[in-house]
């Protein structure tokens, strides 16, 4: 077996984990499985690409790659813009769709269905605007440097892994130690009691969308940077995202990250053993195993 699978798995697992964080948070706090979450990744990537294009038009130097990476200062700047726009998209969708259904007291499953409809619409809208042709953040080629033990990684890949770990650690600290994090955990346990405690549940919901959509955008950019940007990229990641969130335990940020890494690694090894064409089935197999053996996931509470 080729040890390179470890690096490949960690890299794609980082993207999945980061994306799954938003999914697990909206799942535990808003209490529905959000099928549009994958499309937040895709929209995040395209919006960032658009901002990068505008920035590149303003100042050509921003596009020049900064050694050793394949992209220039324009990309980190563009990500800021992309995050803001993706968050706006998520908050807007909550305002016109999910929030209204919540206010009406609709069953969670109706909101899931609405998210399914919205996901189809959002994805096809991307296809209409940007066409199905893949797009790229950079045309620069990168050499993978040897890391020892027969593994190689490009600087971009190492940056993705490092940045992901940093973001997850920061988020974990926020949720476990800040007042906002306490309020989020409280709402996820019992929203109506949270109101009795004086928590503005609407505000907690907005914070949840901001974190979830923000992370989704960054995950989408990472996936776009390492592979390519396609309108269907988010949809193709949806099953791995759900599998990671459930494997890690709904509501757990470290769980989502760990779940993402496990799925990334499992996919990478499966590609070597049974072939790349079966890659997408791995998440499904893991999902079924988790549901059979430990439905609450690694860090999940029973009955949660």
């Amino acid at each position, binding site marked *: 077996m080729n040890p390179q699978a470890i690096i490949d798995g960690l890299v794609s697992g980082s993207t999945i984990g980061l994306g799954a964080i938003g999914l697990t948070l909206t799942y535990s706090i808003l209490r529905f499985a959000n099928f549009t979450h994958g499309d937040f990744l895709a929209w995040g990537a395209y919006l960032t690409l658009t901002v990068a294009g505008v920035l590149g038009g303003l100042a050509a130097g921003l596009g020049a790659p900064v050694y050793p990476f394949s992209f220039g200062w324009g990309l980190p700047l563009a990500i800021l813009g992309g995050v803001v726009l993706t968050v706006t998209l998520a908050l807007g969708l909550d305002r016109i769709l999910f929030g209204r259904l919540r206010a009406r007291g609709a069953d969670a499953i109706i909101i899931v269905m609405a998210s399914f409809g919205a996901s189809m619409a959002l994805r096809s809208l991307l296809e209409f605007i940007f066409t199905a042709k893949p797009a790229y953040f950079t045309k620069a080629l990168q050499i993978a440097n040897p890391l020892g033990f027969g593994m190689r990684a490009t600087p971009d890949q190492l940056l993705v892994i490092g940045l992901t770990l940093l973001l997850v650690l920061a988020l974990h600290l926020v949720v476990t130690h800040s*007042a906002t994090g*306490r*309020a989020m*955990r*409280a709402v996820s*346990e*019992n929203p*109506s*009691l*949270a*109101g*009795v*405690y*004086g*928590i*503005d*549940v609407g505000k907690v919901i907005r914070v949840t969308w901001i974190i979830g959509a923000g992370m989704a955008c960054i995950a989408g950019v990472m996936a776009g940077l390492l592979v390519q940007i396609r309108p269907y990229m988010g949809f193709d990641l949806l099953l791995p995202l759900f599998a990671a969130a459930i494997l890690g335990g709904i509501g757990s940020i470290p769980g989502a990250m760990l779940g993402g890494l496990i799925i990334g690694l499992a996919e990478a090894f499966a590609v070597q053993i049974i072939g790349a064409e079966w890659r997408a089935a791995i998440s499904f197999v893991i999902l079924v195993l988790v549901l059979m053996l430990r439905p609450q996931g690694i860090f999940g*509470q029973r009955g949660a």
Partner: protein
Amino acid sequence: MTALSLTDLRAGYDRDLPIVKGVSFTIEEGEAVCILGPNGAGKSTMIKAIAGLVPCFGGQVQLDDMDITGLPSHTLVRKGMGFVPQTENIFTRLTILENLQIAAQLLPRQARAGRIEAMLEMFPDLGSRPRELAGALSGGQRQMLAAARALLNEPRVLMLDEPSAGLSPKLVAQVFDTLRRISDAGVTLVLVEQNVRAALGLTDRALVLVDGRLAHDGPAADLHDGKLLGDLFLGHRAAEAGA
């Protein structure tokens, strides 16, 4: 001065099927009032409607002079209303301290630590292990934490939904002892209770709700012999409603 008043309040889960069918009363500042009634009379729904957890379809709720009808529950805490639900009234997956910290978030920054400290002192059972998960507490201790959380914000009106439910007689006495101290400190107390004897011992005034309407409003002492209460519960004296 009036602390809480209801005017023809109608509330419930379905507009076509109100559970509270037009209730009016006024509670003065510092009073301790208990709300009695048979199962399904709408006591719990009424208190939740006041607390902003159940939709109001008509009428008015006033806290002091403010109209608070239909305001979301979280805004009422700042206005001086405390509510302790009957069950699931603490966050079991958070620590005791975190439960109090959430409530303290509404206070000015410099006051928070002091108020939490005061509550932990007032309830020594909680003070001895603030970093434990609240889910590990016993039934009586949970009620204490729930009360401590509500008191932390120094409410002028404190409403409790069956604080004695599921507790042993010894713990009931302990809980009511605590409530008496709260009442003595000048807090207006509104209590929904099934445990009539314990409730009447604590409060000055009793409201009896039958089928979503007020069937009796008078001094708690009137109900001590149980005869009147029995009649009211069975609906024999419903005609005297609104006294």
